[in-house]
């Protein structure tokens, strides 16, 4: 699974992109977020439930309940500010 992080989130995590093996039992966006939070330190802070974040799965906007599977591209990012 390919993970992407954008804007301020990328800076806070010190990570723009990462390839991981999706653990068994992690099959939603919410589960993935919790899995990444469990890394602790900056990951726990930046992905905390109180932080408003957008997520995309395979380049479509997603919700916490959106399914994720191995091979997916999942991006986490702050609320968008284009235009």
């Amino acid at each position, binding site marked *: 699974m390919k993970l*992407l992080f*954008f*804007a*301020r989130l990328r800076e806070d995590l010190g990570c723009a992109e990462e390839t991981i093996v999706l653990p068994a039992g992690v099959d939603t966006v919410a589960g993935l977020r919790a899995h990444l939070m469990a890394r602790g330190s900056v990951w726990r802070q930046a992905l905390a439930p109180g932080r*408003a974040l*957008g997520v*995309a799965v395979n*380049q*479509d*906007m997603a919700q916490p309940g959106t399914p994720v599977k191995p091979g997916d591209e999942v*991006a986490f*990012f*702050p*609320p*968008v*500010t*284009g*235009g």
Partner: protein
Amino acid sequence: MTVRVQTEDFDAGAEIARLRQGNAKVGAVAAFIGVARDVNDGESVAALTLEHYPGMTERALEGIVAEARARWRLIEVLVVHRVGELKPTDQIVLVAVASANRGEAFAACEFIMDYLKTRAPFWKKERTPEGAHWVEARVTDDDAAARWESQKTA
């Protein structure tokens, strides 16, 4: 529809002329240009960096245009959004809509901008005398987008 994400500046007049293409069914063209200002939240802005999610950006914009076309009868739509380094007075985004009548053109143009502001994966970073910081999303943008939820037009 045409959707472009690019670093280069655009010529709105030329783009609109291309959009109309001498099509005699077009009775109305509504266009919006977003421009970088020198002040945001009271702080003076020296420069702006527009980051985006390559691949998803175009897809998200195409999806927004498709929604506009589902709500209103439109003849042609163009969205051009710049990325990279910009400075005050630089053009950022162009949305142009051609239709038979002005009602659809005005509404679709505003709708596309309201949805772009809340659903298209761009992020702005401003450079000010105090340093660089990421722009925060505005509640008013979410409110503007939400307004369209209760207004589905044929």
